[in-house]
């Protein structure tokens, strides 16, 4: 399979084969056109920064300034854009993810925090913490396409992979809202634990995992039946959830741990120590790793989902929060 042209000399056949194998190995290591590595887009709140981390080299490859304490992040599934909320500036910043360039800043008012983007790439949905609504923003123009009322202080947002359903975690109402994206109407609510914050939907679009900050548990919701399947205790003050290899991983803010539990049996598998105030969390596309932003420790921890161990801590600008879907596919 390996085709390398090199001058032929008279040499013993065995030695020639060895040389060929060795050259092929070197070529495969250094010269083959590698697929570009996926990236993490990490908001650092006090630093007013958006850092782009190459997940293969574990290095920050680009850094943008985003004013007014950027918190929430959503990268479009095609990797084209990133959407960043700045609660202190009441703004949504739309970023060209490949060009590492700010396209526009949209004044959305209220207290923008959670953000999610429709699988088609538009609109972006912004949770307004103070006005208790979700605002839909057109990605191409920045125009506000609509608003829908939620429960009190909506925080985390997530969409089903088909884009039909938007879920908001309504922190001060102890419930999630289910929103039909076509009509932008709130069609149902499901009760959760106390102070739900982050919400993550599985690849099948069947379940939502809601992190309840004050009751230190995860509510697992059957989205079709609109019922609670399970309530799973995790470490103190869980903030958000990521899903990989049949496990759910939660960032436990006060415990400074990531709890892993089995999504079939709801049995706890591990409690993994990370930096203080772990917040944003996301799983690699292939499920091999999860990435955790720790706000106080200023790190992005890489957890191997097979061994359930931290394999790398990457230093971040001050106050990494990365609340939302912060991974970008680069190919």
């Amino acid at each position, binding site marked *: 399979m390996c085709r390398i042209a090199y001058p032929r000399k008279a040499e013993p056949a065995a030695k020639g084969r060895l040389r060929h194998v060795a050259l092929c190995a070197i070529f495969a290591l250094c010269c083959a056109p590698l697929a570009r590595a996926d990236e993490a887009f990490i908001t650092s709140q006090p630093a007013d920064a958006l850092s782009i981390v190459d997940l293969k080299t574990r290095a920050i490859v680009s850094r943008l300034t985003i004013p007014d*304490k950027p918190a929430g992040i959503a990268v479009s599934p095609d990797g084209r854009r990133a959407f960043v909320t700045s609660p202190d500036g009441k703004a949504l910043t739309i970023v060209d993810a490949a060009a590492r360039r700010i396209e526009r800043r949209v004044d959305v008012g209220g207290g923008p925090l959670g953000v999610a983007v429709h699988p088609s790439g538009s609109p972006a949905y912004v949770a307004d913490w103070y006005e208790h609504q979700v605002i839909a923003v057109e990605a191409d123009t920045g125009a506000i396409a609509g608003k829908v009322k939620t429960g009190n202080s909506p925080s985390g947002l997530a969409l089903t992979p088909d884009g039909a359903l938007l879920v908001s975690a309504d922190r001060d109402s102890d419930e999630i809202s289910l929103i039909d994206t076509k009509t932008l109407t709130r069609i149902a609510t499901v009760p959760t634990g106390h102070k739900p914050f982050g919400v993550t939907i599985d690849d099948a679009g069947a379940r939502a995992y809601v992190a309840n900050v004050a009751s230190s548990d995860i509510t697992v919701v059957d989205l079709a039946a609109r019922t609670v399947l399970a309530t799973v205790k995790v470490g103190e003050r869980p903030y958000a959830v990521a899903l990989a290899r049949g496990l759910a991983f939660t960032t436990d803010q006060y415990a*400074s741990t990531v709890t892993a539990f089995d999504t079939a049996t709801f049995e706890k598998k591990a409690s993994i120590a990370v930096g203080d105030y772990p917040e944003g969390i996301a799983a690699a596309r292939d499920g091999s790793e999860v990435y955790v932003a720790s706000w106080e420790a200023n790190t992005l921890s890489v957890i191997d989902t097979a061994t359930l161990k931290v394999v790398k801590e990457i230093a971040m600008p001050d106050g990494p929060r990365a609340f939302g879907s912060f991974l970008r596919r680069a190919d």
Partner: protein
Amino acid sequence: MNLSLLSVAAAAAVAMVGFTSAANAHGPTRQKVSETIEINAPADKVWAVVSNFQDGGWIPIVAKTEGTGGNAPGAKRTLTLKNGATVDEEVAKLEPEKMTLMYRIDKVDVKVLPVNNYSSWLIVTPEDGGKSKVEWRGAFYRGYENNDPPPELSDEAAIKAVTGLYKMGLDGLKKKIEGTN
């Protein structure tokens, strides 16, 4: 420093009669403060003072410390300040090998300290020549839980109050320890 902290608190009290802080209420932006000081004493001696959770007397505005549980995680204390206000606190994490104590405020009136969901870290690091460095870090939300806060409960007011507390506290720690050398 003591007086300015109290006068800020008094202004807040006038403006915010009837306002009480709810343990879980806060806005979207947590704040961070860090202050450090160098102390002319070995780290183990400084750590002995800093890690004694049942004596907050090195903070100049503290009149009395009462509590239970020593300095183990979950240990509690109530600080009574010289102006009569109280602050309830709890140890979150103790790491002697890193000379780091992490604790949280369970209950404080925003009129006393205009913050919510406050946690802090005291970290002692050995320095050359038998000296040490103490860092006091804090993480907290402002005192006002809604949008567009009044100035005395803004992010700036919270940062100013905590920064003032840390500077005053670390000065007090240095004086206490170096004075007993």
